[in-house]
């Protein structure tokens, strides 16, 4: 029987997988690495190392950056240097102790030592100044936006050097939501100009330093950005929604990139969920997408669901359909 890792390799290389890759079974997330601070749960708020105020109101599924006039970090993109202070919290060796211990215990025959990295480059621009300012800045103040993106890219590269030295990760799971459910936030040309070069640089560094697998999370429409993802060095696009026409993407790009997702969290992960709903979604997407270049998974990402039991129920349904289809 193939290990989870071997089965993944067969799937993404067009070989002979024994079963569907079941969600994140081939990844072990080392969550202990010193990322920027994150709200621990509903009803909390924090100011992270970049000065961004995050608030997670009760009853919500996650935290949001606060962008009223008082709390926006960058109040004027042309003066971003005045507002942005690059953190160096990750340079403290003590901050890596727990992560190193965790990484050592991972059975690398079964799983990749995986770091989930957020925010992504686009996400950082709008976390610092709000979505409207960030998107308009790409057109109205492109020079300043390039400078800001370069600044964050350099931070990510500096972080990557420490990460590689401390943990030796074998997979990077980069979070960067690039669209709504029906369109990308920006055109492919704008993405190519502003974001592709930075990601290419960062992912190349990782690949040259022991990372075997790059996953990019964007639970959105982003079919028009797939050529850029491939050029960036992304092996797996996680979060792909059905609005992207996944079977068509597999037909066009299978072999160059693998699509992970297809089980829309919004449609199965809600308080009144039940097994029948999940079965319907799992059956449909697995039958439509087939056995290669596709990994069935909740689009939300990571190895969690918003409501208890959903992630596990999806896993069970994928196990069932694997037995039927393989």
């Amino acid at each position, binding site marked *: 029987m193939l290990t989870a890792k071997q089965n993944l390799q067969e799937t993404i290389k067009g070989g002979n997988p024994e079963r569907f890759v079941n969600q994140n079974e081939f990844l072990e997330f080392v969550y202990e690495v010193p990322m920027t601070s994150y709200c621990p749960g509903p009803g909390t708020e924090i100011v992270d190392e970049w000065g961004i105020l995050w608030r997670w*109101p009760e*009853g*919500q*599924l996650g935290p*949001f950056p606060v962008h009223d006039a008082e709390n926006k970090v960058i109040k004027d993109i042309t003066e971003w240097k005045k507002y942005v202070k690059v953190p160096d919290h990750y340079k403290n060796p003590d901050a890596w102790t727990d992560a190193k211990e965790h990484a050592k215990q991972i059975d690398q025959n079964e799983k990749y030592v995986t770091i989930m990295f957020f925010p992504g480059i686009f996400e950082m621009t709008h976390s610092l100044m709000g*979505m*409207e300012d960030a*998107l*308009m800045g*790409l*057109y*109205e103040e492109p020079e300043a936006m390039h400078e800001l993106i370069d600044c964050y890219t350099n931070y990510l590269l500096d972080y990557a050097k420490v990460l590689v030295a401390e943990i030796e990760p074998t997979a990077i799971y980069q979070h960067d939501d690039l669209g*709504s*459910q*029906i*369109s*990308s*936030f*920006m*055109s492919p040309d*704008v993405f190519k100009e502003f974001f592709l070069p930075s990601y290419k640089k960062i992912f190349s560094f990782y690949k040259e330093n022991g990372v075997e697998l790059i996953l990019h999370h964007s639970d959105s429409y982003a079919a028009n950005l797939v050529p850029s993802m491939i050029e960036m060095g992304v092996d797996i696009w996680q979060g792909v929604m059905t609005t992207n026409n996944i079977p068509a993407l597999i037909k066009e790009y299978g072999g160059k990139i693998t699509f992970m997702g297809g089980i829309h969290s*919004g*449609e199965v992960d*809600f*308080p009144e969920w039940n097994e029948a709903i999940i079965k319907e979604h799992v059956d449909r997407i697995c039958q439509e997408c087939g056995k290669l270049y596709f990994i069935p998974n909740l689009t939300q990402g990571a190895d969690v669901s918003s409501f208890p039991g959903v992630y596990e129920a999806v896993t069970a349904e994928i196990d069932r359909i694997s037995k039927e289809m393989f």
Partner: protein
Amino acid sequence: MSKVEAVKALVEAGKSKKVADAVQEALKAGDKAQDILDAMVASMGVVGDKFSSGEIFVPEMLIAAKAMSKGVEVLKPVMAGDSSSSLGTCIMGTVAGDLHDIGKNLVVMMLESAGFDMVDLGVDVPAERFVEAAKENDNVVLIACSGLLTTTMPALKEAVQTIKAAMPEMKVIVGGAPVTQEYANEIGADGYAPDAGSSAAKAKEIIGA
């Protein structure tokens, strides 16, 4: 190219730093303020259509709306007292339990560009607040409710039903990623727009403008 056409082209291209001067030039050349405004509204219609068809993306729509607002600033003093260009007031908000504001903000811009006076209630708006705002403001002709999450669909339903119970004649438009025409019909909304680009045309249709 006429001065008005130049304004129109600048709005469509989102050249917010140039529009104010272009509007001034058009006024100096003798073009009527109403004609200039109509041209800008038409531009935003084109922008909305291009967004709906996937030809342009959110940033292009944002800069076009910003450019239009710069042009309107120049026209406002000239048109002071002339209410004929207003389609009435629209109250808008994202429903209770939902903090997403990008789609809502885009719709606010598009409706404002189309000629509505917008009252933006922000996000996480309780159903009753829509009704209160409709009573507090003059000439409210439309209430727009946005919901992005599957989990907040019940709040969207509650908002529409609360508004209709308190103000049966009030027109209500809904939108957001999980919303469909069928769902809009089911909860008693008067209209639904699948995206921000088509929201202005649908809003005008609902109020009979």
